[in-house]
């Protein structure tokens, strides 16, 4: 086991060819972190780009329930990002499983199977997120296209892609 990362940094791994895992520790109790992730009145205060307006038209956190998060640029009606899916398993305040699709910049990710685990450690909460791609090919495309050499179009940034959280 690698030690949990400190607050403020995110660790990420590709344990299999279709699965991406990220870990981040928040300095708050699990119930609070879970609420921040699942209650619209809290979500709108942190999710999304700085200065964007988040709307949560659908947030039905129970097995079979849908969610839809919309992010608008500033105070405009210009839709910038949409994240949506369906919950399959809900255990407050420790576990969520859902499908997830993300749209932005005119593009759409494949539907991924996601889980979020909230575990208490010394008054802090470790959040472990897993993202499973529908097939090895799309995961590999996301992960490895950065290895192409000779490209001058920012290919190297692709490795950071879905792994993304590490800056």
């Amino acid at each position, binding site marked *: 086991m690698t030690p949990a990362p400190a607050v403020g940094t995110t660790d990420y791994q590709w344990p299999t060819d279709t699965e991406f895992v990220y870990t981040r520790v*928040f300095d*708050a109790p699990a119930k609070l*972190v879970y609420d921040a992730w699942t209650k619209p009145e809290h979500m709108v205060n942190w999710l999304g780009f700085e200065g964007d307006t988040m709307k949560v038209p659908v947030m039905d956190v129970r097995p079979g329930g849908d969610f839809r998060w919309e992010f608008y640029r500033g105070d405009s009606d210009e839709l910038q990002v949409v994240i949506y899916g369906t919950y399959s398993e809900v255990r407050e305040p420790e576990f969520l499983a859902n499908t997830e699709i993300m749209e932005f*910049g005119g593009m*759409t990710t494949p539907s991924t199977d996601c889980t979020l685990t909230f575990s208490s450690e010394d008054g802090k909460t470790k959040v472990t997120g897993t993202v499973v791609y529908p097939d090895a090919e799309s995961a590999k495309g996301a992960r490895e296209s950065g290895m192409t050499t000779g*490209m001058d179009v920012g290919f190297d940034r692709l490795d*950071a892609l879905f792994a993304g959280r590490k800056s």
Partner: protein
Amino acid sequence: MATDQLSITFSALADPTRRAILARLTRGEATVKELAAPFAMSGPAVSKHLRVLERAGLITRGREAQWRPCKLEATPLKEVAQWADDYRRFWDTSFSQLDAYLDELQTKENSK
């Protein structure tokens, strides 16, 4: 089968032969025969990879000559790179904001 541009681009990029072909094309146009040369692969096998790349909009092929030279099209790659950047920024920003927001919530809680 995903049909959006990002999925198509990712699928096209998932194969090492296709990435090698794209890397070769960054140095200029090439024919199927020239592209096949570094690989232990038949012309038809290389042509199959080229069709995948063409469908993803990553290359275009000349119409006039019978040997139809292949040319790299960088736009989908730029879109993917831009998307990657935005995606990372989205979650980086969100997580930092959550750190701050949780602090704020707990401060309120403690001062009650």
